[in-house]
């Protein structure tokens, strides 16, 4: 099995309950990694904007949509992006209990929920080689990192800690509010080989990763060694020491072997 099953870690913002966690992640692996379509491994992470209503629902709808009916990243266009988003927006709309929303939530619900999104597909470069090709799309500040030979090879779409702020580009659940979205879409692709480490992360841990990398601390070593039994304590310690922003924190790690 050259592409190991992903390891997923997540933790809500300190002070929030588990049911208030508004990041979401999904990974879907086929039985056998192929070159296209349903043969692709698919990973998605998102960060629902805490300033919006029903953000948790939207975050989950978005990552489900990416892994279950992955958009064609080769031919992504403003029209195909809108067409891909529409069923997800409908689903979010169906999940909102419109007739029970209190007055304070009405305007926000009408405006829609917002979330960042990073979607990644990994497929075999050709049926007979051990090389993989990957494609990624991003809206906002969830990041993809690929580490090879103990060096950070790919940092997408952001490359430095200083690029993170509280105003990332966001996908809206309201179809009337996607004007300008296409200009915010970032795409990248490349190959990965045995020994590579693929890391997909939401903003708080992605920013931590890039800050650590900037001071040559090799953050991938820390992540690769993490066990689920110590994850919560480890994140809490980074937050306490001011190294990681107190925010919902999510990371998916894939080893290519």
């Amino acid at each position: 099995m050259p592409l190991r099953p992903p390891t997923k870690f997540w933790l809500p913002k300190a002070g929030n309950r588990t049911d208030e966690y508004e990041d979401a992640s999904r990974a879907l692996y086929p039985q056998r990694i192929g070159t296209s379509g349903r043969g692709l491994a698919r990973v998605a992470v998102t960060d629902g904007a805490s300033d919006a209503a029903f953000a948790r629902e939207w975050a989950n709808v978005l990552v489900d949509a990416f892994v279950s009916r992955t958009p064609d990243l080769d031919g992504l266009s403003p029209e195909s992006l809108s067409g891909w988003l529409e069923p997800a927006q409908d689903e979010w709309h169906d999940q909102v209990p419109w007739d029970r929303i209190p007055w304070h939530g009405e305007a926000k619900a009408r405006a829609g929920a917002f979330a960042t999104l990073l979607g990644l597909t990994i497929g075999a470069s050709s049926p007979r080689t051990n090389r993989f090709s990957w494609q990624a799309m991003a809206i906002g500040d969830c990041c993809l990192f690929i580490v090879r030979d103990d060096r950070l090879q790919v940092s997408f779409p952001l490359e430095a800690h200083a690029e993170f702020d509280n105003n990332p580009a966001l996908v809206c659940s309201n179809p009337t509010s996607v004007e300008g979205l296409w200009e915010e879409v970032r795409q990248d692709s490349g190959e990965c080989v045995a020994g590579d480490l693929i890391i997909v992360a939401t903003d708080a841990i992605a920013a931590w990763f890039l800050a650590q990398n900037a001071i040559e601390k090799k953050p991938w070593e820390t992540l690769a060694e993490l066990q689920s039994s110590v994850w919560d304590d480890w994140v809490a310690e980074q937050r306490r020491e001011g190294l990681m922003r107190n925010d919902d924190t999510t990371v998916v790690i894939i080893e290519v072997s």
Partner: protein
Amino acid sequence: MPYTADISRANPGCFLFLIDQSGSMAEPLGGQNDLAKMNGAADALNRILDAISQRCSQGMDVRDYFDVGIITYTTDMEGNTELDSVLPGTRPDHPFLPISQAVDAAEVVERSVKESDGAGGIVEVSRKFPVWLQARALGGTPMCEALSEAMKALGDWTNQHPDSYPPMLINVSDGDATDGDPESFAKLIMGIGTNDGNVLIYNAHLSSMSALPVQYPTQESEAPEDESAARMFRMSSAFPDPVTQQAAAMGLPVSEGSRGYVYNADMVALVQFLDIGTRAATGLH
């Protein structure tokens, strides 16, 4: 850097409103014969608190990102100061409730309003509006005593929340105190704070003069030529840099040194500049 603390339930923010309910507030608002200042004051409070509630709403429930308090000030027939803490179960020296409880205390009224239908047309729809305060105007203007009481409440609050974003005191008045010079009290309040900065005082000045509305001036000379306007300007804090930057990015008429002072103008937009996590309002539309 000050004024950068994250506003969260562990370290909530704080709004304290002081509302002038003196007799002069029954006079019409400058340039608007059909609207009394007392209605303008109640409306300002209800709208700002509505905006705060909406910022904290997750849809079905409200997260306690803020403590809020409302103190009205006037005098009785004998001229004795009357301070009233409006939220249920509170007192002027302990005026605060978490925003989720303040939300429950609102009386909700439905009004029909005209809105864009998103396709270039206008539709009339029914919308809900929360009301915490009814208009009232009788008696004198003990603004100094109100500020003095606010100082005690804010002192307690900052002691209990040393790592929070500093409290914001919003004073809604026509500006003419009847119990002394409120400026010295305002200066004292601006001297207390949290580890993240000192209390910010914002003044919504409602005047019967028909001078042009003023928003967020940088100099006293930009306020209307009137001693009470000049005093209210001096009693208003300059916006911290992060607020100025957010406000400018959102298209508000602010520049370096702008103060939290409006004259016969709206202050609701202030609520949008506070960071409470990943922001949706300035995201893609």
